[in-house]
């Protein structure tokens, strides 16, 4: 195999220059002539019937160009469960549920107009706790949904009861994780523009513009060809833009149609916190059977997912958490009972890791607790049970590449696991955890597809235009895809222009979610590039009177392998090919569907992803026993990504994911009051770590060269989010002797736990 010219190199991001000059246009920067500003009126009550909505005073206001209610937005939709309408007509189900929208000449006028809309509500009893919501007699939030259980994804593999009987120890522990927000830098926004021919142009910060197009066209009953979704650069996604934000989107679209002018709706930062579908709160019980020698015999996990008022990605999130826990260790007896439960609260959605980080947190933290209880080394315990290349796991995943063992060993080595545990220092502790995530996924029942598309044209001068279905939401996908195209074509990176985001010029795909861009997007690009390359070599072969198999391309030059002096430029080949009788362009396209399978509907087993990425996190902390403050001394984050197409980019992704994981562990929380109103929807009160709070982070890349992905690549972005809170809590446990598992683990929780431990000791 030839040496790689572009893949595996730290190629600077292809979009970095326009971003550092401020030239890069994000959806929120789009301005359209004659644009109006839209705002939505939202319910102040958590659960109520709508008796009447009077918009007349708002309609009469100067500067107000359109007012709409749910009667004008009768579109029913959702992600997996069709339980949403953009504006409510009958019932509101959470504080913030939208009931009307206005479009006006400026934001201040729109906000004033909202104040003039009169809504009469009849309050209904509300429920805010999912365990309560599941009880008989609890208020029913969606008619017909018994006990408010929207979904019940289960896995039942092997015989978990037998496994517990065969175990020497059985441990059961309960864990809860908190709601956290994506905190995308660019707030949610969209601009809807209709033209006289009935065509809609919709500017939207989407992770999946072609899916948004399908959703919009279906709902409005107009052909997809009449809907153009345009996504520019995206200021962060992390899953919050992996589906339409239906209320906002459809309000803008219908207001634009009614007013005859473009309408922009943009969230203020507090709206962004509350309404961009945060990470769900999970209440989990983990029961594990284990033998004396450390072999795990089986696991049973129950997970209650606090969905909030509407499903969005909730059922998928509940499902994923379950699937992945059957993919990490070698036990084959596994049961998972997931419940996606409605509550009268703002609702969650997809967030980086999509349910996996929470369930891993429970499973991995418990494993460390078990190691503690049995006097075993948590690292050794994991190495003993870890899956390996070639395994078919409990969940049905077929691991064609698996670097879990190397990841554990590398992270442990970097943190100084052996030496430091042999010489423990007071108030210091180490924690370790590992995890697995998929690369693209087939976990939505009935949807037997997971694809990406690429189209490619080679120009007269040998430069290339590449269009991908993958949106670069900051992960660097455009750069990685450009590198793959460059490598296959033998044409330099800076001659390839990669675009995304416009449904009129880019192929369809699932967009950017489930860590699929590099691998699935990459395979579509690779295949398209191979086709383009074949076309170039065929044409060159004709011109040079040589068999295409004897030709190679490198540095934009086609040359004869056995006589490199005999060559012509790619540009010359393209021109030769085009400007002749019966000439042809060099154009290629590919739609690549990942070789994964839907799960068996009975057991839930299936090889539901093309590849699985593994990783480990090791953290060292020092605790101040006087204040409870935890200083993180070091973080080692190792990751098996198959092949690092762009190592600098991959490390950047991992470092950013550690930042998110540490926030999840220590400082971030969406705080809701008794009616579900968010108490801290501002960046001062919702604490993402600042530069001064970040500890040293070592990102370690482990390459296992997966046989399927382009150049061996697998997904990166989500696996990197897994394991951080697990390792953190375990490190604090070692430093303090206490497992403080109530996330986020704030200094207060640590100090008060230490004080309680002290007084317990005194009492004994």
């Amino acid at each position, binding site marked *: 195999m030839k040496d790689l010219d572009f893949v595996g190199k730290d190629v600077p991001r292809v979009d970095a220059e326009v971003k*550092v*000059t*401020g030239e890069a246009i994000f959806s929120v920067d789009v301005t359209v002539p004659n644009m109006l500003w839209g705002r939505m009126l939202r319910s102040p009550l958590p659960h109520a019937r709508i008796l009447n909505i009077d918009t007349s005073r708002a309609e009469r206001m100067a500067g107000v160009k359109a007012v709409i209610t749910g009667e004008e937005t009768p579109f029913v939709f959702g992600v997996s469960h069709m339980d949403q309408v953009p504006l409510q007509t009958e019932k509101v189900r959470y504080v913030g549920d939208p009931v009307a929208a206005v479009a006006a000449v400026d934001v201040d006028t729109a906000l004033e107009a909202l104040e003039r809309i009169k809504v009469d509500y009849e309050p209904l009893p509300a429920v805010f706790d999912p365990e309560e919501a599941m009880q008989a007699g609890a208020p029913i939030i969606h008619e017909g949904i018994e006990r408010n259980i929207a979904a019940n994804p289960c896995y039942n593999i092997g015989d978990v009861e037998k496994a517990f009987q065969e175990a020497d120890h059985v441990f059961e522990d309960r864990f809860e994780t908190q709601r956290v927000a994506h905190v995308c830098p660019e707030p949610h926004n969209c601009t809807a523009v209709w033209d006289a021919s009935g065509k809609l142009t919709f500017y939207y910060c989407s992770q999946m513009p072609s899916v948004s197009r399908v959703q919009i066209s279906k709902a409005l009953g107009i052909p997809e060809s009449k809907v153009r979704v345009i996504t520019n650069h*995206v200021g*962060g996604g992390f899953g919050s833009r992996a589906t339409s934000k239906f209320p906002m989107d459809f309000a803008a679209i219908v207001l634009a149609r009614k007013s005859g002018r473009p309408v922009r709706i943009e969230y203020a930062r507090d709206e962004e916190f509350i309404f961009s579908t945060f990470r769900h709160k999970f209440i989990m019980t983990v029961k594990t059977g284990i033998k004396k020698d450390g072999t795990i015999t089986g696991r049973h996990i129950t997970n209650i997912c606090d969905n909030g008022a509407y499903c969005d990605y909730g059922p998928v999130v509940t499902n994923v958490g379950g699937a992945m826990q059957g993919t990490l260790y070698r036990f084959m007896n596994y049961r998972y009972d997931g419940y996606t439960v409605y509550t009268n609260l703002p609702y969650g959605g997809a967030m980086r890791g999509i349910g996996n980080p929470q369930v891993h947190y429970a499973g991995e933290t418990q494993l460390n607790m078990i190691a503690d209880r049995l006097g075993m080394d948590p690292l050794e315990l994991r190495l003993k049970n870890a899956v390996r290349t070639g395994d078919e796991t409990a969940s049905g995943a077929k691991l064609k590449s698996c670097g879990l063992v190397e990841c554990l060993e590398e992270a442990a080595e970097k943190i100084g696991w052996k030496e430091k545990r042999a010489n423990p220092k007071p108030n210091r502790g180490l924690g370790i955890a590992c995890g697995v995530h998929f690369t693209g996924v087939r976990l939505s029942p009935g949807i037997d597809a997971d694809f990406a598309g690429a189209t490619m044209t080679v120009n007269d001068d040998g430069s290339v235009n590449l269009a991908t279905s993958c949106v670069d939401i900051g*992960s660097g996908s455009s750069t990685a895809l450009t590198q793959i195209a460059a490598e296959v074509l033998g044409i330099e990176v800076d001659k390839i222009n990669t675009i995304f985001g416009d449904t009129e010029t880019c192929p369809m795909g699932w967009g950017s979610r489930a860590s699929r861009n590099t691998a699935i997007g990459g395979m579509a690009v690779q295949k398209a590039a191979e086709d383009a390359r074949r076309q170039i070599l065929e044409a060159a072969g004709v011109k040079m009177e040589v068999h295409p198999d004897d030709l190679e391309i490198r540095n934009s030059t086609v040359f004869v392998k056995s006589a490199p002096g005999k060559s012509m430029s790619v540009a010359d080949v393209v021109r030769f090919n085009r400007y002749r009788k019966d000439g042809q362009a060099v154009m290629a396209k590919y739609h690549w569907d990942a070789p994964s399978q839907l799960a068996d509907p009975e057991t839930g087993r299936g090889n539901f992803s093309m590849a699985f990425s593994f990783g480990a996190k090791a953290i060292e902390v020092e605790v101040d026993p006087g204040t409870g403050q935890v200083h993180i001394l070091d973080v080692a984050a190792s990751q098996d990504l198959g092949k690092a197409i762009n190592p600098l980019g991959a490390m950047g992704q991992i470092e*950013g994911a550690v930042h998110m994981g540490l926030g999840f562990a220590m400082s971030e929380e969406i705080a809701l009051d008794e009616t579900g109103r968010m108490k801290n929807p501002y960046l001062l009160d919702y604490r993402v770590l600042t530069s001064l709070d970040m500890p040293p982070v070592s990102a370690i890349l482990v390459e296992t060269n997966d046989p399927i992905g382009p150049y061996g690549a697998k997904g990166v972005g989500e696996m990197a989010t897994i394991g951080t809170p697990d390792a953190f809590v375990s490190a604090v446990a070692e430093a303090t002797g206490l497992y403080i598992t109530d996330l986020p683990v704030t200094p207060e929780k640590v100090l008060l736990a230490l004080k309680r431990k002290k007084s317990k000791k005194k009492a004994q």
Partner: protein
Amino acid sequence: MKREITLRINGETHKLEVENRRTLLEVIREDLQLLGTKKMCDMGECGSCTVLLDGMAVNACLTLAVDARGKKIETIEGVAQGGNLHPIQKSFVDKGAVQCGFCSPGMIMTTKAFLKKNPHPTEEEAKTAIAGNLCRCTGYVRIVDAILSAADSVKE
């Protein structure tokens, strides 16, 4: 009631009619179409709207436009010189400090003001300088790298 003010931005003079309540951020984005300065929170809590006033980094969202009169205002659009990236911008590109890019203009403006005052910073000083600029993508690691690397190449 609008009033006439003059603002000097990136060396150019602009005559504008603004209400007292308009912030500098609103005016530069909405009235002047200088879209490089971003609005992430509008409350001075994130630094993405950082511009320089007489060389000092400030949050444009907490600066009234009328208060920016008579000051030398610099935004991200004025940083590159004659089509060439400023050493700080080049450093951000080369060191992998840019992911989604939304925080980048603010980070670069803060860095520009900081390095002028402290041309040879330690890592801790660099981290302190950008402590008011939030990033959700990078974990700040490569941004701090870029600042320290730029410190070596910034001559002015």
